[in-house]
């Protein structure tokens, strides 16, 4: 008698909400980047899309003079930055509540993302991140693993993004 072992997945893609984190938008001219990196205690990468991490705080370079800092809630990064504001003018704005973070995992996650992202998501290296569009909504995508992504979505766009994700998820589950 032969028998087959079936590998049942609950879903080819799993979409979960992540706990709130502290998000800060840092704008600083390249001349003062080193000063800010020193007082914040982390490396501020120069290449757009590059990330760095130190002691729970993560920095992502979004543009030539723009970084997104994420850290556990309650981390104080503004006080050390305020101390050097006179010498290194910059803007450090708390945008924690502007966005929600979704975690997308599973073997079909690339199919799910490429349904709505025009960028070649499969070509993103693991450990990279990018600000891109998801069906015209601006999102930030982090690739944490081969089939694991984090996506920051503005709150006001979240219902639209969620409904699209659910729709594509249903199509993938149905084998379309």
């Amino acid at each position, binding site marked *: 008698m032969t028998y087959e072992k079936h590998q049942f997945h609950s879903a080819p893609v799993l979409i979960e909400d992540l706990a709130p984190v502290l998000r800060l938008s840092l704008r600083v001219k390249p001349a003062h980047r080193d000063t800010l990196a020193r007082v914040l205690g982390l490396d501020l990468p120069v290449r*757009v*899309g590059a990330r760095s991490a130190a002691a729970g705080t993560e920095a992502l370079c979004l*543009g*030539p003079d*723009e970084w997104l800092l994420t850290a556990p809630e309650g981390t104080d990064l503004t006080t050390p930055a305020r101390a050097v504001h006179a010498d290194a003018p910059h803007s450090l704005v708390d945008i924690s509540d502007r966005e929600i973070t979704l975690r997308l995992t599973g073997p079909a996650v690339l199919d799910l993302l490429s349904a709505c992202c*025009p*960028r070649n998501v499969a070509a993103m290296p693991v450990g990279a991140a990018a600000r891109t569009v998801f069906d*015209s909504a601006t999102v930030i995508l982090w690739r944490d693993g081969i089939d694991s992504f984090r996506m920051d979505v503005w709150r006001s766009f979240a219902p639209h993004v969620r409904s699209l994700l659910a729709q594509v998820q249903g199509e993938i589950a149905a084998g379309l």
Partner: protein
Amino acid sequence: MLLIHCPYCDDTLPELEFAYAGEAHIARPADPSALTDEEWRDFLFIRTNARGPHYERWRHIGCGRLFNALRDTVSDRFLTTYKAGEARRPLTNEAAE
């Protein structure tokens, strides 16, 4: 879909990540109050409307930066892109591509 090279990200990305932002290399008047009405009109509204290579501005949503591009309005091909503030790229360069 058009693929556009962002000079700030140094990456070639799909058109949907970019937004058109009008003709490039239009300098603001140094002394606005000295301008006549006709000069104001020309500064605000009169554009090249080129048939062929056209200098224009584009904005990349990814890095949030405006940059300049030289696009052929007939073939819709991007001949070159370069950072904002850089000198106008000569038209002779595009033949090399």
